């Protein structure tokens, strides 16, 4: 137990260092980008017929900063605010705190990504077990082939294809936004149903994207465990087939948990493209828009959140691993 807590503390410390590093890099990289939102807005006001003096004053009021401070001072100020949990004020959503903007978007990314990931993991792993057990038969090779094909499809192609088939062509599933705008949000069956149907396409995309990878990894993992001595030993001890399958399953799925944790981060990054295709107002969509609008604080906040998610997912995977693998536990 003591060793476990020590490892956990070490993981957390490493995670903090990671978050700090990413925050720093984001800050400087974003500021190195060409174009400046203050200048852009200033030019906009001037073009709109506002006197330059007034425009400058308005910019400094709206954006709440003076861009002539040295970069290092800005950076230190940013870190100080960050320590207080303050991510700054969004530029494109004028005046709204970044934390609020992000908080509104987070569930629309987290829920679809996690359910898609879970779905693809369950379906892919099950198919992988079957593919491994039947690897010398036609059905097994067909299953493996489906995995290889699905693993090779780029995310945006798949998203566009699904959107085209199920919305444009057959119009069986809604597209864009998180629910029907005519339905008032609330804890009603109608609203939740609408949310669910709107989530089908993004979730299906996430699930299908992961499916091939899980299938192929699980297949090779099961095949290698099947060749392990202890499986033959169990057979020669007359262990029941169902019990032997449990032995195989648990041993085979173990190495996949590391990949699962890593893929959480992968999926969040992938949500940028997929939410754009489905016009789904999640974190990925937000990030894309904030880049388009040169909304520095929002960009920084979104990047930071994705980093934190990945770090947390890795720590969780580590904890989970130590629960299920006795060799790591003690």
């Amino acid at each position, binding site marked *: 137990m003591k060793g476990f807590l020590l490892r956990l503390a070490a993981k957390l410390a490493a995670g903090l260092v990671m978050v700090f590093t990413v925050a720093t890099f984001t800050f400087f990289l974003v500021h190195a980008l060409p174009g400046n939102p203050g200048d852009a807005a200033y030019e906009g006001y001037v073009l709109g017929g506002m006197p330059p003096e007034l425009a400058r004053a308005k910019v400094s009021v709206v954006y709440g900063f003076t861009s002539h401070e040295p970069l290092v001072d800005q950076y230190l100020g940013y870190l100080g605010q960050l320590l207080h949990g303050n991510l700054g004020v969004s530029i494109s959503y004028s005046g709204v705190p970044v934390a609020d903007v992000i908080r509104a978007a987070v569930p629309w990314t987290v829920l679809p990504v996690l359910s898609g990931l879970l779905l693809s993991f369950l379906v892919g792993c099950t198919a992988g077990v079957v593919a491994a057990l039947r690897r010398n038969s036609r059905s097994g090779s067909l299953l493996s082939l489906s995995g290889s094909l699905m693993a090779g499809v780029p995310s945006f192609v798949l998203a566009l294809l699904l959107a085209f088939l199920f919305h444009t062509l057959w119009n069986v599933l809604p597209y864009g936004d998180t629910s029907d705008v005519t339905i008032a949000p609330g804890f009603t069956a109608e609203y939740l149903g609408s949310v669910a149907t709107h989530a089908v396409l993004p979730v299906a995309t996430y699930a299908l994207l992961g499916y091939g990878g899980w299938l192929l990894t699980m297949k090779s993992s099961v095949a290698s465990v099947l060749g392990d001595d*202890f499986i*033959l*030993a169990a057979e*020669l*001890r007359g*262990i029941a087939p169902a019990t032997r399958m449990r032995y195989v399953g648990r041993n085979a799925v173990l190495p996949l948990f590391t990949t699962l944790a890593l893929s959480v981060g992968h999926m969040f990054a992938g949500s940028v493209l997929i939410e754009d295709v489905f016009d789904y107002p999640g974190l990925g969509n937000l990030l894309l828009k904030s880049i388009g609008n040169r909304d520095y604080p929002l960009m920084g906040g979104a990047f930071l959140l994705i980093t934190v998610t990945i770090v947390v997912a890795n720590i969780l995977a580590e904890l989970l691993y130590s629960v299920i693998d*006795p060799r790591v536990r003690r």
Partner: protein
Amino acid sequence: MTDPTPHHDGAATAGARPAEVAIRDLTVVYRTEHGDLPAVSHASLELRAGEITGLVGESGSGKSTLALSLLNAVPAPGRITSGSVEVAGVGDVTRLTGRRLRRARGGALGYVFQASQNSLNPLKTVGKQLLDLGRSHEVEDLRALVRRARELCERMGLDADRVLDSYQHELSGGMRQRVGIVLALVLNAEVLVLDEPTTALDMISQAAVLDIVRSVHRENGLATLVVTHDMGVVSEIADRLAVMYGGRIVEHGPAGELLRRPSHPYTRALIGATARIVGDTRLARALPGQPPDLTTLARRGCVFRDRCPLAMPVCEESDPALSEWTPGRFRACHADPVGRAPAPAAVPAPRAQDDPTGGRP
């Protein structure tokens, strides 16, 4: 059981005890692209209760395949094509399938893996795997099963509480080997098969494991088969010895006599190749040539003739049958038996071993 092969009634051999296991004319074939390749050809062997039989041979000689066919567990693409393995109280194992086969494995037939192999599920404690074993064999009184396992553990010098609560990675090689023996015997097996029981163990653990094998064998009145390539091991514990080469049993008989006066040229070479701790190590002679694998195995004539110092023209033509050349001792060779006591009349008739009855109706 009414096998007509005359040289295997075993009446002349020392013990009058009935055979616990009778392997008759067993042939195991591997299906490959090059056709059917025999890993074991027409092997016959009996294991008696209270006797330890050593099965020796180089790797690839078919000894492990033979051991696995005792449990009808020849790995694919291998297949038992003829012969039978009669186990007392179980019947012909080669004809068992499904549940009855599964219950025989781990039940009447205990199999112990090579020490270097990981024969335990790494994610479960030994105790939990013991319970899995009990449930698989529908043991009603699991407490009694655990008690019996504890007893066996203590008898083998293991701390039962600790071992049952351990995962495989927490046990040393020698301990794993003993746990393997516990799991093989906990359901009161009558036949114990040990595959390379001492390979990959240090000398001290080797001696300890052999001691344990000997004592559990004696206490439980088992019929034990020890498969090994190590002549030292068999000379230490075996009562009887069978030597395999190229899928055939080329010689068998009482261990002491066979080791002192080997008769088959291969056995002689094998013993001659064993380096000694005491005396001149240069006396060890390597056997020239390579042991055959399934693809290079001679299809006709004696499988050993290419490496045999006594090869004669007849060896090219026919495969010598295993026959009793002096009471209690069997060998498969065309050459004159060496080391034989004053010449008995019958020199084994050189004839091809192609017994058509093959033990099957």
